[in-house]
Every structure is written in C-alpha cells, then in structure tokens.
C-alpha cells in the first residue's frame, strides 16, 4: 500500500518534533518553526493544536514526551523491494550502493518491465568502466566542493580542456544521457558526459566562487486548435515546461511556453510534429525559422 500515513508528511513532522522532545530541546517556538518548515502550508493550523489539546497524546504540556528514543521506523517491504529493483537498472553501476540488508528481498518488478519506446538509441554507456570513473569523479567533486579539470571532445571533434566548478548533473530520459552543468568565472558550460575523455579533481573551491549563471528563458506563444484530441496531446507533451494556457474561443487556445535558448531547435521540431493544430505566433524569429523549413519542403515536394 503506497497511500499510507506511515509515509506521510504529518508522521515525518511529528517524528522530528518528538526527536526534539526526546533531546529535551522542544519549545512552542521550535514546534511552530518545524511544522512551518517541514509540513504543508496549513499544517501549522492542525499539528500544534492536536498536540496541545492532546487529541494526539504524544507531547505533554511542558513539551516533553514519554518516548524513550528518537523515533525511527524500519524500512517497509515496499521500500526495500523498490531499492532491490534498482539494482537491475544499468545506471546503478554509476552509484554502486551497498547491497547489505537486501540479500533476501525480492525486487519489486522483474528487469525489463519498463519499455521506453521512444527513447533515443544512442544513450550513454552506463556500464563502461571509463564512463563510470568520470561520473564518480564528477560526483565526488560536487560532494567535496572541488574544482574539476575536464578534457572532452567538442561537437566538431576537437579536444577541449576546461577548468570548472561542477554545478549540476543533468539527466534526460529522452536522450538517456547525462550532462554536467559547470561554471567558471568566465562562463557556464554544459558538457555531455559521454564526450568526457579525462576528469581530474582539483583544489577545493570557496562558496563565494560558486556563481553559475542562470539560464535565459525565452517566450514562445502558440495558438492551438483542439482538433483530434490536440489539446490534451499538446498540453501533456509540453507539461514539463513552465506554461500558461488561455481559451481564446470555442476550440482555440493560446499557450505561452517558457524555454531555454539552447533548446530552440528541438522545440521547433517538436512544434512541427503537431502539424497544423499548432501555430507559432511569437516570437517572429521562431516563426521565420519554421516558415523557412516549410518553404524548403515546398520546393522539395515530389509527391507521386
């Protein structure tokens, strides 16, 4: 059973409050602070009151508790089985977690249960020892706040050397690839891990060195005609982006998407894939690029 209170936010908040009470550190102020930090927005109206009026007889009026130990809960069978199932995922080699405690546990599902039918075929080599070494080196640099020196092959086949602060590891389920988002004093750079040839840990960096530049967002405005279930298809397709939708009239909708400049070409072909149910109305340079493709196709048409 997944939908159970034992996994719930309230139980987690209460566990934290009770830990404080066991340590003798709980006050009314800390109680409200923890509930605000860890609970839902309105939990502060419920949890302190239920404890105070002893609807939940767990904390006494003087903020102590009869509990003798800080609350802990063994992992449930579901949690253990989920962890065990991860061990069959090819990407697990990147992390190499300890197997202790899972020896007699059945995986939650058999290997190959999930089929990503539209995932690209040239994903990263997650089981290649060199790739694993690079991944772990980067992860270690992130953990220990160290500068990195990377050698990698660029788009045109030339080798580059880059000293940087590793910022994030980005994974794309569609590409089945990792990228390192890195920064130094001059710029921010994304590097496909599959292109990394060598990776070296350097000196620690101070927090003030840590200045990744925020990605610039662009706006794309689309007009959608809800034909052939297009509304649902389009909304789901772009649901991972920040967006706004407004009904214009009847079955026409205005969709505003916010995207990053580097993804423009990809976005262009994604818009094309919907055919005539989607029309780009802004920005003009995006419309121009789309029209160029259509013009090129028109010149090429040799339909039998």
């Amino acid at each position, binding site marked *: 059973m*997944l939908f159970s*209170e*034992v*996994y*719930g*936010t309230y139980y*987690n908040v*209460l566990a934290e409050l009770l830990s404080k009470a066991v340590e003798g550190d709980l006050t009314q102020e800390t109680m409200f602070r923890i509930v605000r930090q860890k609970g*839902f*927005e*309105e939990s502060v109206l*419920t949890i302190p009151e239920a404890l105070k009026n002893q609807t939940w*007889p767990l904390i006494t009026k003087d903020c102590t508790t*009869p509990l*003798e*130990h800080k609350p802990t809960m*063994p992992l*449930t069978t*579901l*949690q253990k089985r*989920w962890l065990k199932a991860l061990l069959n995922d090819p990407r697990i080699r990147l*992390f190499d977690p300890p197997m*202790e*405690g899972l020896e007699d546990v*059945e*995986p*939650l599902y058999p290997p190959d*249960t*999930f*089929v*990503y*039918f*539209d995932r*690209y*075929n040239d994903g990263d080599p997650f089981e290649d020892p060199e790739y694993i070494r690079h991944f772990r080196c980067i*992860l270690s640099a*992130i953990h220990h706040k160290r500068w990195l020196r990377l050698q990698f092959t660029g788009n045109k086949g030339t080798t580059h050397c880059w000293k940087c602060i590793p910022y994030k590891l*980005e*994974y*794309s*389920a*569609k*590409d*089945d690839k990792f990228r390192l988002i890195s920064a130094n004093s001059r710029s921010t750079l994304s590097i496909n891990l599959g292109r990394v040839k060598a990776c070296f840990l350097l000196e620690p960096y101070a927090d003030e060195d840590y200045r990744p530049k925020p990605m610039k967002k662009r706006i794309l405005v689309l007009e959608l005609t809800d034909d052939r279930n297009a509304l649902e298809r389009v909304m*789901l397709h772009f*649901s*991972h*982006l*920040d967006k706004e*939708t*407004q009904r214009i009239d009847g079955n026409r*909708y205005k969709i505003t998407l916010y995207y990053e400049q580097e993804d423009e070409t990809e976005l262009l072909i994604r818009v094309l894939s*919907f*055919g005539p149910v989607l029309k780009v109305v802004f920005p003009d340079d995006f419309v121009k690029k789309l029209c160029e*493709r*259509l*013009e*090129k*196709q028109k010149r*090429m048409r040799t339909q039998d």
Partner: protein
Amino acid sequence: MAYSELIKNFDRIRDYMRQFYVYGFKCRTEYDKKSARSYDNERRRVESWLGDFMRFRQSPDGKNVFLSVDSRSIPANPLYNAFKAKSFTAGDVTFHFYILDLLHNGEDYTAQEILNLFCGKYLCHFESDWQPDISTIRKKLKEYVSLGILRAEKRGRELYYSRAADSIDLQAWADTIAFFSEENPLGVVGSTLLDKLKTQPDYYQHKHHYMLHALDSQILLQLLTAIGEKKAVQITHINQRKTGSPVVHTVCPLKIFISSQGGRQYLLCYHYRFRKMMFFRLDYIQKVESGADERNYAKYEGFYRKFLTHLWGTSTGIEYNVDHLEMTLHFDDNEQHIPQRLEREKRNGRVEIIDQNTVRYIVDVYDASETLPWLRTFIGRIEKLECSDEHVVKKFYDDLAQMYTLYGGEE
C-alpha cells in the same frame, strides 16, 4: 465534515490535480464532476501541498487555478506530496510512535503485553481517559506486519511482535535514491526514503522530465506487483475518447510502456476476451484488482517479443496488419547530423544511405499513421514519402498544405 488538508481517498484528488496540471485554463464552474464546495476543498488542499507551484489568473469567466513548473529547475517532483497526505486517526498516530518506541531495542512482546505497556508506560502521562482495546491493537500490529515494519513470530499459542530487521545504510544510498526518485517510474517510493535523510542531494537536474505520472503510482504499483507475481488482473478503464464510462477488462499484464517524449504510460497486456495484445493508458485506469495466477505467462511473453518487432508506439493498427513505409530525405553537405538523427531516433526498421546527400528510412509497422508526428520533424528535407497505407501519405501532405496556409504561404 470539517475541512482537513489530509485526505482519505486518493481518487478524487488524482483527477483534480491532473486537470490543474495539464490544462490550467478552467475556472471553478467548469469542474463539473463535483459540487463547487468540493472544488473549493480540493483546490485548497492542492494549494496547501504545492503552494509554491500553484498559479492564478483572472479571466472573464472567473479565476483560473493552475499548476505550472519547469521540471528542469526543481530537484524533486512536487506531485509526490499528494501521496503524503493520507489522513489517520488519533489512535493510528499514537500507536505508531509508541509501538515503535516500545520495540526499539529489539524487544518482542505479545499484543496483550503491548497494550499493557502502551497504557502503563505512555498514555499514563496524559489526562485523556482514552484507552484502546486489544482488538484495535491486534489490527494495527497486523497492518504493520503486512507493511514489513514489524515481524510476528509464533511461540506456543502466542504471537510475539518485534521490529523488522533493517540494516540498510540509507545515507550510503542517498545519491542513488535522489536520482531514481525522479527517474524511476515508481519514484514516489524513493521520495519517501529521501524524507528519512537529514539532507537531500540537490545536484541532479532532470530535462524532458514528465511528472504527471506520479499521480498514477498506486495503479502502477498494483500492476507491477501482478507482473512480478505473474498474475492476471481486472482493470477498470475509462475510454475517454468513446463513452467515458468505466469498463472492466480481464488481462494478463506484461510490460509498462513509457513515452519519454510525451510522459504517457501504458500497460501492455494480453486481453483474454479479445485474444490479443492491447495497450491501456495508466491515467485512464481507475482500479486494478489482482486475479488468478497465470500459468501461460511465458507464452504471452513470447507473443510480446514477436509483437515488438513491428511496433512504433502503442498502436496495434487493425488486426496486426503491417504497413510498409519509406521516407527519403535529402540533406545538405553541412547536415550530416540528419542520417545520425535517423539512426538515433528510429524504432525498428533500417536506414539506407543512398548517396552523399540522400538517406532513406524503411520500416514495417502495425500502424504507420503513428509515425506522422515524427515524420513531420523532418519537414524541409523530405524528398519522398511512400506508404502501403495511402491515407498516411495523403494525411501528411494534406496537413502540410494546411500548414502552408496557416503561415500565409500558398498551397
């Protein structure tokens, strides 16, 4: 009944959250399934769980409430919060903390001993005169055994309860769990594990990350359990495009198909009555009930392997008839990425290099119309398109003509 931010039943909120997330242009009166008060309560809950991600806009029809988030910019799926809002009774929460405290050091007790200690060691500190009875204690202990939190051992005529063994070093799993809690289809389980850690890794970023599937996690879990146990299931499915009313199907579940480019998840199964492989969208499945053991599971898996060879997406076309499709692309000297794109994105089929600037993709699929969205991504380079189903070619060029008109060109 007084409003609470916790819920007893997940089904209703699943529907509301989906509508807030996917559409986001509806106003209060358009949520027609329930009363306006019900809408207000559900909206208030979702705001409470996901406050930072809720947006509002005033339109002439009223106030629109919607969920909007760039999944690349956040470390964790906020929709998981819905699974962490299960309501409970005062007894539930009191038992939870006291029973686990009582058994903390490896002790084991009978239900009666637990009840005695529960009252004598813990409840006595409070003024309340509430006391649980033995049957309530037994019921709770049984539930915790089934969850795997406690274990029960029979000695003589008595059952003794203790904490289940747990030697997993969760901190050593932190990086793994943080990654898979987003990338695994049942990542919500990982999210419950992350909640146990003092600090949660925040250095992963997820591109092309669809989050809505989180709302179908309970359905997915039941299907995975049946797949693991090789059991038939009864699914209650709503066909949104047709009647909209629920239909029960008895099927043998085999695989979960996931679109990494659209976020949809499908159950692939063998349908006993229709005697064929079928797909059902998980977000249209309302209920899953476990059925009998399937002795022929290996046979159906064999069907699946054969079936896979002509599949493009999740459509089986008409009676497994196979369409033959060929697309010839012309590309410029500086567009050598085009044949690479074909190799990278093709599903089944083969790529033939015709000459230095021409490449052809050839495939036999159950339903060639499914390839249309992908074919359109090559607009500007398509020299020739041929298909044994002539409607596919016609559709492609008709749509293209409409697009010329749409952007002011002439057809």
